[in-house]
């Protein structure tokens, strides 16, 4: 690990990707993630990598498709509207089973919206904003250090399952600075070369075909069953979450990413007032930790889900809680970030209502 450095989230994520062995980046500028693109433009040539600014996000996602189909470690980053434009391409990438990493530094929506932090792209990331039965391995860091640590994992999971990964961040994580230490540079010779399936030239072997297409529905269903088996395995093995002071808690707060770290303040404030509350923070949004949450809430009095949206993850929380105890929701949206005080207020009200 490197010494601690004060780094902007966007730049830290870019550096982490490079240290994870990513030497190829395609992307298009958009606030609040542009510093990531710009860092790559500066840094990649220094490490013999290739940076290319695409003409659009539609082009970017298809460049990713092309690069990933050669088995090369590759990534892109964008923010909400840009990620929407990538949906067709992402569906193709998932269907063609290509490993690659996406970063969505979410901003307020819908439409042009604004450029402030938000969590209103949860459905898009976890349920599939594109067409068809596919999933993205979706990881949500709550600090720059965690982002830097999750990025190599995102690449490894993408390779292991031949499935795209998504880092779901937000404008605050992208724009803020905090101390972070980086892992060492990955030895490029250790990267999987994927020569068993990738398009690298068929000298001395049968040609490799990369596709999400089969005109015969039975064959296409077989392809879907292959994805589905993967997804089942991922749901079993790759669930990640963090709990804080849940053991003696009567109430559980659930939040992810930036909201999750802010709730750690609320937790301290509430506990200092003697309120028995705990925090459940999903790190993998897909696969969502349904079972862990369900085990956790046994015997608790209620759940408060807090999001920077009008309520998206709360549906997964309800699926996890499965009607066993009340699930409440508090959210701000459009780029407004709930402050610890207002969330504490909500928590007290909910307890007051005896939920």
């Amino acid at each position: 690990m490197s010494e601690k450095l004060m780094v902007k989230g966007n730049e830290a994520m870019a550096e982490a990707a490079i240290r994870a062995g990513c030497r190829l980046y395609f992307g298009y500028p958009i606030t609040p993630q542009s510093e990531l693109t710009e860092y790559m433009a500066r840094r990649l040539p220094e490490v013999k990598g290739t940076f290319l600014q695409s003409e659009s996000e539609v082009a970017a996602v298809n460049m990713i498709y092309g690069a990933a189909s050669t088995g090369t470690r590759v990534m892109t980053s964008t923010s909400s509207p840009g990620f929407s434009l990538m949906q067709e391409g992402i569906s193709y990438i998932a269907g063609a089973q290509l490993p690659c990493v996406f970063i969505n530094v979410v901003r307020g929506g819908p439409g042009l919206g604004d450029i402030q932090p938000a969590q209103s792209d949860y459905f898009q990331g976890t349920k599939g904003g594109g067409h068809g039965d596919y999933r993205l391995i979706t990881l949500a860091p709550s600090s720059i250090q965690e982002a830097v640590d999750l990025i190599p994992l995102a690449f490894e999971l993408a390779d292991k399952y031949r499935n795209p990964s998504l880092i779901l961040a937000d404008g605050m994580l992208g724009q803020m600075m905090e101390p972070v230490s980086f892992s060492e540079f990955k030895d490029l010779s250790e990267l999987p070369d994927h020569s068993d399936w990738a398009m690298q030239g068929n000298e001395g072997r049968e040609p490799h075909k990369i596709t999400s297409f089969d005109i015969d529905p039975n064959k296409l269903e077989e392809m879907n069953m292959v994805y589905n088996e993967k997804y089942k395995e991922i749901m079993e093995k790759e669930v990640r979450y963090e709990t804080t002071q849940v053991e003696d808690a009567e109430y559980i707060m659930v939040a992810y990413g930036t909201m999750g770290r802010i709730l750690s303040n609320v937790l301290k404030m509430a506990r200092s007032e003697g309120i028995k509350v705990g925090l459940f923070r999903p790190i993998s949004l897909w696969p969502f930790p349904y079972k862990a949450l369900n085990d956790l809430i046994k015997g608790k009095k209620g759940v408060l889900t807090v999001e920077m949206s009008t309520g998206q993850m709360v549906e997964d929380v309800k699926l996890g809680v499965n009607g066993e105890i009340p699930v409440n929701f508090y959210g701000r949206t459009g780029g407004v970030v709930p402050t610890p005080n207002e969330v504490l207020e909500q928590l007290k009200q909910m307890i007051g209502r005896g939920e």
Partner: protein
Amino acid sequence: MSAIKTFKRPNALSSKEFTYCPGCHHGIVHRLIAEIIDEFEIQGKTLMVAPVGCSVFAYTFFDVDGTVAAHGRAPAVATGMKRARPNNIVFTYQGDGDLAAIGTAEIIHAANRGEKITTIFINNAIYGMTGGQMAPTTLLGMKTTTSPYGRKAENEGYPIHVCELLKETGGVAYLERVTVNSPNEVRKAKKALKKAFTAQIKGLGFSLVEVLSTCPTNWGMSPKEAMKWLDENMKKEFPVGVFVDKVGDEK
């Protein structure tokens, strides 16, 4: 061609039968590309990107590593491949709906960047696979299922001239429009394709060959009639010829 005057299926083609309609020019162009891959001995390092269109199956017709891109995005996909593996030969194969409608931005910027890829552009003035809708290259007055009263400049605008547009971008190394309407034209087309691949092999930049082609099925003609119609109508609108040549002549 090999010393002895003998003609047989090139090795770069897989054994699959083409899915094209009787008399469709897609098949002729496929064979020419395969012949060149054989002659340049690049089969082992060639990557092909098929479009969405009647040639969507093309990635299975060539015995090289292949994929099919999202509709219109083949140049972006090829860009991703070539940037990842500069030593491979990458070519895309696209129809006029794929390249000149939905894929307009991708082809123009790939050409402008001088991506070292080769694009084979089949201009049959119509959307074949989806059943004969209007293409950007559909001629004025031509009836299609989405211009049932004939294409009118007033409402649908004019046939797009892809080579004329692309010649205005900086990165093009070779650009020619050809036909495969007779044995002689087939020979010319092959020469053009050879130069296009040479441009990539020499790393000179982007290369594209536009082939005016028939779609007997959706034109509602016999293969013979279709070729006559192409001669009499398409060549007028889309004059054949070399637009850019930074390759020069081989000795």
